[in-house]
């Protein structure tokens, strides 16, 4: 596939414009949901379960309700007997029911004149619990006699991707390697808390909360309360660093229920402990598998079994492991993944879900094979990774691929589905290796680059991938409205968690419409004006939202040119263009009209100024069947064999996100991924009480994250651009592949330093155990 086949020179796309809310951020005036207030607002507090698994036999709220200042209490008795399920299956359950499924689970909520009274009232609720047997370990939870956490049973159906015959493949292989890997649960460790404000007006409800997924929140409220979507308005506010945490969460529905009962606006703000211990986290995951290769290093067979826990309310069966596609050149493959419920806090999608963990394990298997072959890990990856045009194994072998019919009118427009559309991973690996000095630094498997006393230095390389959005549960949409002065409003429900999507979308509109990005305002959170969208999840935004934003802009553009050609500029619409806010004839540029004048002039036929509202008119191909983002990271580490500490000395992150919409926005996405990924590799893991499953490190003192001095200041990024035929101006997703490439690069470097493979996070304790020192 041709690279960079963009024919049109771009004027706005590709520029590092400052992000739209940058001034609000540096002046501290940006309002997050915790800063939002509405008049006559009550304050709510949630009563949480002290037990891992219990049935509520009785609940007495009379003392709480009698406390002066209390407006009301809700318990499961007030909740509709309705299940709500988040689109990405990170929650499935009632808003409240008569069961508690983890320590910290919601049991009741109080609304009062202030938060202090609400807190006091919560303590006055008397609950009679029947303690039930509990289960915390995902493998224990799969046993037939395990306590069942949810009515549907603990075990989800295994999700299996399979091609060829792995057993035959293993027999036919020249070398075979086997391994396993365990991952602790990473937490979002959100900076900034979240709050929810709900207000009912008659039978309509408005909810304000920080969220990446306004539409999902709205759907959840409609489902959980049994009201039509038309009665629900969600105003999603900016959030602090979210990484998948603040989508639609049950505390928001508890707030909506409470506000309904007390018939006044209610705000519930979560404290730090609640943010860490009661909402959501990355799954606890365990992988094992084997790999077979021929002597020349070609992949013959890969088999992986992977389980992950869903905690109390997660309901996922498929975390989305695009890494299976990445190494799909293997002649045979079988990936079996299974979700399982436990009495731990709910687990769900976190940035790079599936590919961070299972992807890291696959890379470990590749390394184990490369060791047996005595092959350079870089060469091994270059030989085996997916290339443009190769089948995407995860879907290629399914009935979906067999049944799928490309609409005839799209046959020439769409790339070959179920095959990779484009890729610059190869270039990332080769150019990255050159920049990093891989040839000079790579000394062979298990061989450090340098040994100084107790310290050993070594290098590693790893890759990561993820999707560029999926079609699950709906089609992303956008609306472009042109105003009488030629300025433009884009409405697209992406949420605002800080990665700069309003800015990159505005760049797309500006490019398509030929106007300045300053003239564009973006509404990303209000479901009253934004059509349905997945939100900023699964790397949807740049790619899928970008596609619809561009399509809606082109629709608006065509409407303008059609009217202009009819009344003001002689010619066909196709002969006209817009640049710098001026409509003109391409061959006779002296025939022109400023857009502002056009929009405010009464048309001769309607006797009114034109109404221009663009909507996506172009059909989007199923993007999961063609587009992937790629990362390749190079790390140099120093392992102290006495203290067990691992220090990152050098780090290079290379990235293929297609055309760069805004380079500085992308650089932040990539460094963010690398740093959070490195944090998981080295220090980040939740600690659960063995007896109760309670989270023991729900704060920044006990849950460690990397800070500025913990990451190399000489960090570098390198972008290799492929050109995606569907993404806006060739762009692809960016945020999730970088977090997937960290663990493989660091784990391999650590292996080369000390000769042993470690589970994640690779804490000093694990290093010393690996070295047999403790």
């Amino acid at each position, binding site marked *: 596939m041709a690279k960079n086949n963009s024919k049109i020179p771009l004027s706005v796309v590709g520029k*590092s414009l*400052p*992000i739209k*809310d*940058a*001034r*609000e*951020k*540096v*002046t*501290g*005036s*940006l*309002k*997050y949901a915790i*800063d939002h207030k509405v008049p006559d607002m009550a304050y709510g507090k949630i009563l949480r379960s002290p037990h891992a698994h219990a049935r509520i036999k009785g609940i007495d709220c009379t003392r709480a309700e009698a406390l002066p200042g209390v407006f009301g209490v809700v318990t499961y008795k007030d909740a509709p007997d309705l299940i709500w399920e988040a689109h990405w299956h990170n929650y499935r359950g009632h808003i409240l029911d008569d069961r508690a499924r983890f320590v910290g689970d919601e049991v009741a909520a109080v609304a009062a004149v202030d938060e202090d009274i609400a807190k006091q009232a919560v303590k006055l609720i008397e609950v009679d619990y029947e303690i039930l047997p509990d289960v915390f370990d995902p493998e224990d939870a799969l046993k037939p006699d395990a306590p069942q956490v949810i009515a549907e049973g603990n075990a989800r159906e295994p999700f299996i991707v399979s091609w060829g015959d792995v057993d035959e493949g293993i027999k036919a292989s020249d070398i075979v390697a086997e391994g396993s890997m365990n991952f602790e649960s990473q937490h*979002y*460790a*959100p*900076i*900034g*808390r979240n709050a929810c404000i709900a207000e009912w007006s008659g039978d309509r409800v408005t909810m304000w909360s920080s969220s990446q997924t306004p539409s999902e929140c709205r759907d959840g409220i409609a489902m959980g309360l049994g009201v039509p979507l038309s009665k629900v308005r969600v105003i999603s506010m*900016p*959030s*602090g*660093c*979210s*990484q998948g945490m603040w989508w639609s969460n049950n505390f928001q529905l508890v707030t909506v229920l409470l506000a309904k009962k007390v018939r006044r606006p209610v705000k519930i703000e979560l*404290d*730090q402990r609640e943010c860490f211990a009661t909402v959501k986290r990355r799954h606890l995951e365990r992988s094992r598998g084997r790999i077979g290769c021929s002597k020349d290093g070609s992949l013959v067979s890969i088999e992986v079994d992977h389980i992950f826990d869903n905690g109390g309310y997660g309901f996922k069966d498929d975390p989305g492991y695009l890494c299976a596609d990445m190494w799909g050149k293997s002649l045979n493959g079988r990936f079996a993944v299974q979700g399982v419920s436990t009495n731990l806090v709910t687990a769900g999608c976190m940035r790079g879900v599936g590919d961070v963990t299972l992807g890291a394990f696959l890379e470990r298997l590749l390394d184990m094979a490369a060791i047996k072959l005595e092959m350079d890990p870089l060469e091994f990856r270059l030989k085996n990774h997916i290339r443009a045009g190769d089948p995407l194994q995860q879907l290629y072998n399914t009935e979906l691929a067999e049944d799928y019919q490309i609409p005839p009118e799209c046959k020439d427009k769409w790339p070959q589905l179920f095959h990779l559309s484009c890729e610059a991973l190869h270039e990332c690996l080769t150019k990255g290796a050159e920049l990093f000095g891989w040839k000079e630094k790579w000394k062979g498997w298990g061989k450090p680059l340098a040994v100084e006393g107790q310290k050993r230095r070594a290098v590693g390389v790893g890759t990561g991938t993820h999707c560029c959005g999926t079609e699950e549960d709906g089609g992303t949409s956008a609306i472009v409205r042109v105003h009488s002065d030629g300025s433009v409003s884009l409405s697209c429900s992406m949420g605002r*968690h*800080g*990665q*700069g999507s309003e800015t990159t979308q505005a760049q797309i509109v500006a490019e398509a419409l030929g106007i300045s990005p300053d003239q564009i305002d973006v509404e990303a959170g209000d479901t009253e004006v934004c059509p349905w969208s997945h939100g900023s999840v699964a790397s949807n935004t740049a790619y899928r939202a970008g596609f619809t934003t561009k399509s809606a802009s082109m629709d608006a553009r065509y409407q303008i040119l059609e009217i202009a050609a009819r009344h003001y500029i002689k010619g066909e619409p196709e002969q006209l263009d817009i640049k710098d806010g001026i409509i003109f004839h391409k061959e006779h540029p002296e025939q022109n009209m400023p857009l502002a004048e056009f929009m405010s002039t009464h048309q001769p036929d309607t006797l009114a100024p034109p109404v221009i509202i663009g909507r996506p008119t172009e059909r989007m191909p199923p993007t999961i069947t063609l587009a992937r983002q790629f990362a390749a990271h190079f790390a140099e580490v120093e392992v102290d064999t006495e203290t067990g500490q691992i220090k990152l000395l050098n780090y290079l992150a290379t990235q293929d996100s297609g055309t760069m919409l805004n380079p*500085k*926005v992308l*650089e*932040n996405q990539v*460094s*963010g*991924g*690398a*740093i*959070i990924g490195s944090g998981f590799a080295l220090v980040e893991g939740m600690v659960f009480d063995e007896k109760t499953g309670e989270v023991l490190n729900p*704060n*920044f*003192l006990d849950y460690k*994250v*990397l*800070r*500025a*001095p913990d*990451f190399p*200041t*000489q*960090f570098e990024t390198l972008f290799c651009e492929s050109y995606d035929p569907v993404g806006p101006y060739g762009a692809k997703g960016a945020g999730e592949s970088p977090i997937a490439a960290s663990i493989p690069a660091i784990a391999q470097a650590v292996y080369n330093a000390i000769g042993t493979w470690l589970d994640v996070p690779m804490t000093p304790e694990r290093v010393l155990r690996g070295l047999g020192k403790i």
Partner: protein
Amino acid sequence: MIKLKLKVNGNIHELEIEPHAILADVLKKELGLIGVRVSCGEGECGACTILMDGKPVLACMMLAMQAEGKELLTIEGLGTYENLHPIQEAFVEEHGFQCGFCTPGIILSTKKLLETKPDSTPSEIAMSLSGHICRCGAYPKIIKSVQKAAKKLEDNHGKK
């Protein structure tokens, strides 16, 4: 309730507060200074950093009473939306943040750092910001922003 006189961003405020009121809460809730961001509330994340007599302090770890008679500067007093301080300009231009929650605290710490050591190296900048968590992982661009801010301040100084 006790009476308290606070000087914040050059303005004097007379307040009646509970003796145990936390400084960050008083600034945010009584005075509406939402740029004092509170995340951990226990002195670990650095988001609520303000300058007290020019030195960075954690507003979540202090009683409001402790600020009596001191000069407080929050992010609201540094530059305005229309007229940014050079440090704020540098952060805007260099994309020294994503979500922006940690930004006010980091900018105020930067002010002190650049007053003390304007020629700080990237490692020194990183170390001086070790009390701040940027969970988005924008550290590389934060360091670039601080370097650019140093340059801007030096240029401004030269003009005078």
